[in-house]
């Protein structure tokens, strides 16, 4: 399928994968799909940094590495600060004439390493204006250590540290809106994407990498272990996340918000929740209020997003997602 931007799946599939198979991520995990898409979208040399987390522990277990590009892992909370160091050394050596090539820098972190423990490091790197793209693969909990609650965990979800019990029915707080927090740094580019809408994702990565300065992308990353869903449902679930407006696709470029996909008919949130065991208890009669409240939260955030939309939405009137086929 050719597109106005000239990106085709056929062409992308011909490119060399920079994260090789043989890594030890779980079957059906969203994260390696996302990393693969991000790296396929990038042109030219890339250096990556990784926060401690599922992606990191599963892709570089000595003496093996799945990374065909230079890659650095330091600790949990400091992928952005670490990559700041790498990028600054690059600038220093380039200025001294010791490096001639143009290199792009990409950091990958899960929601724990990005929304929570790594927020300060990320905020600092964005404020300082390092030329890097930070990609958060948001699976909504500390999945690597066994599904503990994070500030990205959605309202009502059952996790191992906010278990749905007889007194407390799962997580009682709403998620943090990290994409907006990052946009509030007045960085040139912040966006949300989903692996279900691959074309939208690839376009956003390409746009981000074409801009000099700090960029942030938040990408929904289904985790069948933590979401208590079927192994092969990652793409279906991430699509439902978008179509129910639980995970709106948008970008904020130089302060202007653009919703990049508006569903023709917004699906009810329960369509996204029902296939996931972490929300099972919400369907008990006594927790009906939670479903109602969760839908209200999603509606309110979606309405607020639409109000801020500059109206330059790319999606066709049919509301069909670019690349959703």
């Amino acid at each position, binding site marked *: 399928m050719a597109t106005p931007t000239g990106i085709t799946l056929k062409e992308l599939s011909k490119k060399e994968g920079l994260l090789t198979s043989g890594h030890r991520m779980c079957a059906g995990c969203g994260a390696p799909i996302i990393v693969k898409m991000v790296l396929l979208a990038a042109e030219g040399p890339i250096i990556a940094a990784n926060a401690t987390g599922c992606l990191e522990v599963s892709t570089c277990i000595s003496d093996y590495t799945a990374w065909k590009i230079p890659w*650095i892992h330091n600790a949990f909370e400091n992928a952005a600060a*670490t990559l700041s160091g790498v990028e600054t050394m690059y600038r220093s*050596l380039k200025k001294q004439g010791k490096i001639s090539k143009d290199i792009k820098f990409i950091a990958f972190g899960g929601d724990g390493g990005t929304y929570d423990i790594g927020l*300060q490091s990320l*905020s600092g790197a964005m404020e300082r204006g390092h030329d890097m793209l930070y990609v958060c693969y948001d699976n909504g909990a500390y999945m690597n250590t066994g599904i503990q609650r994070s500030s990205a965990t959605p309202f009502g979800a059952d996790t191992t540290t906010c278990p749905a019990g007889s007194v407390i029915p799962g997580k009682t707080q709403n998620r943090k809106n990290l994409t907006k927090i990052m946009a509030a740094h007045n960085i040139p580019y912040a966006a949300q994407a989903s692996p279900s809408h691959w074309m939208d994702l690839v376009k956003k990565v390409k746009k981000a990498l074409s801009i000099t300065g700090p960029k942030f992308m938040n990408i929904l990353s289904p985790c069948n272990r933590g979401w208590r869903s079927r192994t092969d449902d990652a793409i279906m679930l991430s699509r439902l996340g978008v179509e129910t407006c639980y995970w709106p696709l948008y970008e904020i470029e130089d302060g202007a918000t653009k919703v990049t996909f508006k569903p023709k008919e917004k699906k009810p949130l329960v369509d996204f929740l029902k296939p996931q065991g972490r929300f099972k208890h919400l369907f008990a009669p006594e927790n009906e209020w939670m479903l109602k409240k969760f839908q209200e939260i999603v509606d309110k955030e979606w309405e607020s997003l639409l109000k801020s939309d500059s109206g330059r939405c790319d999606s066709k009137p049919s509301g069909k997602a670019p690349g959703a086929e």
Partner: protein
Amino acid sequence: MARVVAVTGNEAVAEALRQVNPDVSSAYPITPATDIMQRFTGFVSNGKVKTEMILVESEHSAMSGCIGASAAGGRVMTATSSQGLALMWEELFIASGTRLPIVMALVNRALSAPLNIHGDHSDGMGARDCGWIQLWSENAQDAYDNTIQAFRIAEHMDLRLPAMVCLDGFIISHSIERIEYIEDDKVKNFVGEFKNLNPLLDLEHPVSYGPLILPDYYMEYRKAHAEVMSKVAGVVLDVAKDFEKISGRKYGLFETYRLDDAEIGLVILNSAAGTSKDVIDAFREKGIKAGLLKPRLYRPFPYEEVGNALKHLKAVCVLDRADAFGASYGPLFMDIASSLYTCKEKPVLINKIYGLGGRDYLPEHAGLVLDELAGIAKTGKVKTFKEYIGVRE
């Protein structure tokens, strides 16, 4: 010609860093180290150095940035104190475990609580076993000389280990002393061009830094680290020999002062050694054979050499400017005791804790300790093996 100047310890360290001219520095301000980076960023802003600064939002990020920059491939330095070092703690181990030759000035300051910004050694002692090289400095000249030598030591191809240069907060960092600066070109030639080892920026040879290593290999990596630590002392001595050629100043693993024929002695780190030497001179004039040992390379600690230097004494007091709560003695005492353990003959050892949180260490304190040692040497009787001095009862 070497320049003779009157400067503070911080100013001297900043001057050494200007002369070394690193590629990147990632730093965060903290009293009393702030002044080093303030002065250094002045050099950056005025084009006196090629260094790219990363002015981070915390010390954790300062060391994280240093790690990223060092792994990328180039010369990297930073400076900190006290709480800043404590916040870096996790990263100190990652810097050394990744074998990155980062140089850091540590302006020694007390740890909170209670909050205190003045000089003691609690910060450096807390980081003594994190796999870094530690060089301690008595005065501004030592701090300047150690900073220059630290780059050569850390970047040595047999080592590739991070190094911290310790100097006493305020007492040295903010006091003006007469020191000699070496000429710029001599320092430049002395440190030489930075040699890369598996740089992340080498696109032709992509490397992965920071792997997960499970029980099947983790222990081999730690053993390799321990083995490389055993090579540090030799490199420190070689570098000191070269340094003497450009400076005329001699450095060893530690300094001995009137120790060869001494019967009683003090072991003491950093600025308080200067005060103690004056008092030792006074005791010598009274006919009492007193001497002193001041460690310089504190990590890795040269146990054998220190043991040999002290074994002939009758009584020795180790003065600690930090306590090790829950251990019976201060940290320096435990190292001195370990270094004498295998010696057949050894002195009676006592331990005094002094100068915490910037409390003055006065000549009277050294005098009282030497009197006590003279008594122990004569009678063999020890009143108490460890106590705090210069403190209210």
